[in-house]
């Protein structure tokens, strides 16, 4: 796949001056919209996870006219609900040396120096407000006997700043946002559209002015126009078919926006989560994550000897290799996710993996149970242990868990400036759907923080600055009609192929290819192979896919086919991005770029930049670089040893 290099991106709209004053400055400089005018301004929010749900609720509270869309049957189902472990905030309630600056520092370092300092600092600042907001909504965080909030530690940090609600933190935070959203629905400021899927973005006069959606129950194609559009449609990990994402998670909304002119930044940055339940068979439809919080008390090990097939309990202490504690004594089992994942892959590649196919490592709670007692372990992790037993049929109180890395999160996404606005004026992108805060690797418990920071606090301020110039008047019919026709003809095309393979069978094959060639370890050779194979598979898809049923009904095969089609195009861009970035950083490990110990080796001279890709219908994407400068955190090779 060819590409060309375009002009650099020079202005990210972040204010100048000391980093701790930038957000205050931006808030003050942002134009305000008078309350009477807010009612006349229409905003579309797509997606109802932590970012979209909180944004729609907050925009409604501010008095804007909001339309909120989700593909599920209720906004409460968005996949943020599955986040287990917790949410970071620089409250320093423990007095253990935490601060906004330290959270900022840990996040920049954890992201392997590929995130923007200004954005990350703001995230750390806003983090404290999120906890206040959630508690006031009635989110039942874990508490100590004194009635104050409990915290725990998470990977990549040496302080205890992660707030949690047993193993269901995402659920509780999402329900808080969902309830705030439903309150606005009742108040009439938000109109809710469930079972609606966004299939295109309407761009008129150079501004994002609406979306084309399909009513998934009736099949009707609808037009919705507005003064601004917010995409909060999550990540694209399902390009790998097997991931910890929900089955419905997809790239369609952001990909169609990309086709309309929004740049796609760092698509190759993929997070492989170290603690997931291993694959059990060919029919596997998704992978289940076991919260990273388990690494607080669980110890990761494999047998010292290759091919040792004794039961774990029969392997004596001195014949076990607690490899994370051995290689990274300072952080031990709490090293960041990218490092833990690659270490697991390495020991399995050495032939020391456990379980079927040797693709697994032990996560052992024996010592924790001896130290704290079974009850205490059950109180902390009971629901996770139950989940594990339900899926595997094994009891982790007696037998160590088996875990293996799986695709979990995508740090890449649509490029946004400091205001979270994409390269299309009026199109804002928040949460996992954008690229902004996590660099090349996201730390645990930071996704919830970012989603809610964007939705409750950042976007509602910055979008006002844009909307102050509105309302933007009628939308030209031509632009709306063009988008609608495009959507309709694509659906007709999918239905008319009438081939012999299901959309899922193509998706599975694409996912396997991406895992093998663009997964935990990437090489020039593997990426070139993928770039050769993806267009062939895409061609076969458009000639041989079988979509049963019609467009005018609930048709889950048609929904799936449309999403898979977009995954092909995204997969190609991911591989290209991974090929061009010849360094290793965070979740992107190029085998050619490693140090003597096998750790990721960055190339700051050539790659301290964001790669923002502009779409080209001729499949010759244009690369725009945004230079990354570090004035506050000194760039160093990460070390957790």
């Amino acid at each position, binding site marked *: 796949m060819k590409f060309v290099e375009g002009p650099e991106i020079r202005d990210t709209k972040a204010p100048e001056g000391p980093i701790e004053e930038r957000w205050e400055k931006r808030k003050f400089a942002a134009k305000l919209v008078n309350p009477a005018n807010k009612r006349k301004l229409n905003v579309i929010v797509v997606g109802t996870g932590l970012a979209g749900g909180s944004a729609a609720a907050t925009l409604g*509270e501010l008095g804007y006219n909001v339309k909120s869309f989700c593909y599920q049957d209720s906004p409460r189902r968005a996949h943020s609900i599955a986040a287990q472990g917790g949410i970071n905030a620089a409250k320093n309630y423990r007095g253990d040396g935490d601060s906004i600056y330290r959270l900022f520092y840990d996040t920049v370092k954890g992201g392997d120096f590929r995130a923007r300092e200004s954005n990350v600092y703001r995230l750390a600042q806003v983090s404290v407000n999120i906890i206040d907001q959630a508690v006031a909504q009635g989110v039942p965080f874990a508490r100590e006997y004194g009635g104050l909030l409990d915290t725990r530690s998470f990977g990549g940090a040496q302080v205890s700043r992660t707030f949690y609600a047993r193993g269901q933190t995402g659920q509780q935070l999402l329900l808080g946002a969902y309830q705030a959203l439903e309150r606005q629905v009742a108040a009439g400021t938000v109109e809710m559209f469930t079972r609606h899927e966004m299939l295109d973005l309407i761009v008129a006069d150079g501004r994002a002015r609406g979306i084309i959606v399909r009513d998934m129950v009736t099949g009707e194609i609808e037009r919705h126009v507005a003064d601004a559009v917010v995409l909060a449609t999550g990540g694209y990990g399902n390009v790998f078919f097997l991931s910890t994402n929900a089955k419905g998670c997809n790239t369609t909304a952001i990909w169609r926006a990309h086709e309309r002119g929004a740049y796609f930044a760092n698509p190759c940055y993929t997070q492989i989560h170290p603690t997931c339940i291993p694959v059990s068979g060919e029919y596997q439809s998704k992978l289940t994550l076991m919260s990273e919080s388990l690494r607080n008390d669980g110890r990761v090990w494999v047998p010292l000897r290759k091919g040792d097939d004794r039961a774990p309990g029969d392997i004596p202490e001195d014949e076990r290799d607690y490899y994370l504690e051995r290689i990274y004594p300072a952080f031990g089992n709490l090293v960041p996710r990218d490092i833990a994942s690659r270490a697991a892959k390495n020991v399995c590649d050495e032939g020391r993996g456990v379980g079927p196919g040797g693709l697994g490592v032990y996560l052992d709670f024996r010592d924790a149970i001896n130290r704290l007692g079974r009850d205490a372990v059950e109180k902390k992790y009971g629901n996770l242990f139950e989940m594990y037993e*339900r899926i595997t049929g094994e009891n982790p109180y007696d037998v160590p868990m088996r875990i293996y890395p799986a695709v979990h999160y995508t740090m890449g996404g649509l490029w946004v400036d400091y205001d979270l606005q994409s390269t299309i004026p009026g199109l804002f992108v928040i949460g996992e759907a954008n690229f902004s805060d996590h660099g090349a690797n996201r730390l645990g418990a930071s996704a919830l923080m970012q989603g809610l920071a964007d939705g409750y606090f950042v976007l509602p301020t910055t979008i006002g600055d844009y909307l102050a110039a509105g309302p933007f008047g009628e939308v030209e019919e031509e632009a709306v009609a063009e988008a609608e026709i495009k959507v309709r003809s694509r659906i007709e095309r999918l239905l008319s192929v009438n081939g012999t393979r299901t959309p899922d069978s193509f998706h599975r094959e694409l996912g396997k290819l991406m895992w093998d060639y663009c997964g935990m370890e990437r090489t020039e050779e593997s990426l070139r192979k993928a770039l050769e194979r993806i267009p062939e598979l895409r061609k076969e898809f458009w000639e041989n896919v079988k979509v049963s049923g019609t467009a005018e*009904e*609930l048709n889950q095969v048609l929904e799936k086919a449309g999403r898979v089609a977009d995954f092909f195009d995204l997969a190609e861009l991911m591989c290209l991005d991974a090929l061009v970035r010849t360094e290793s950083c965070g979740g992107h490990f190029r085998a050619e770029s490693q140090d003597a110990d096998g750790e990721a080796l960055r190339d700051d001279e050539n790659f301290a930049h964001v790669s923002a890709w502009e779409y080209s219908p001729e499949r010759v994407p244009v690369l725009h670089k945004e230079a990354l400068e570090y004035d506050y955190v000194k760039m160093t090779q990460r070390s957790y040893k």
Partner: protein
Amino acid sequence: MNLTLKVWRQSGPADAGRMVTYKVQDVSPDMSFLEMLDVLNERLIIEGDDPVAFDHDCREGICGMCGMVINGVAHGEQRATTTCQLHMRHFEDGATITIEPWRAAPFPVVKDLVVDRSAFDRIIQAGGFVSVPAGSAPDAHSVPVRKEDADSAFDAATCIGCGACVAACPNGSASLFTAAKITHLSLLPQGQPERVTRAKAMVDQMDAEGFGGCTNTGECTAVCPKGIPLDTIARMNSDYLQANKK
């Protein structure tokens, strides 16, 4: 494993619907129930048949989207388990399994096993929240909460809104769902100012949606994948009575 499935097929709300029999071969005991249905659907698509429509999303037991009545029990016989977390190792080789949608008047069938549960959203809209606009909250530590209260509130708050309680109830009551939210917020200091008005508004909405009354049968809590306890309903009734006294 080889199985016989008897599945409810209904092309839309206007269709009367019927049970249709399918054979599924070579099912692995490690498959989840939904993966077994995936295998059936992949075959139906290739054969040119309409695959069985069912709701699902996270497939890890937390989004609340999946749900079907399996052999007469909402989410199947394994306790405290959503349909997506049910695995085939709990079925016998050669078994016949019946699969039906939630059946309750306020949950009309959309297609096959997919039902419309938007009534639940409307019950939350009626009052299932604390009125606190973004940015207006005091410091999180300004109000300590007894650990016992926080833990009990959490237990009630784990409801995933799947609707199994309604499907299992002989009266088609949504009391467990409604009571779970009322209990969650009623146990916390943050929920006090709106406690009484909330209970009244939510219960009235539940009635308006056409859900039946509670007669303490307890089928709801028996099938609840999150084990929401029955005594939440007592708390709901208590808050509701107070509202009507005023």
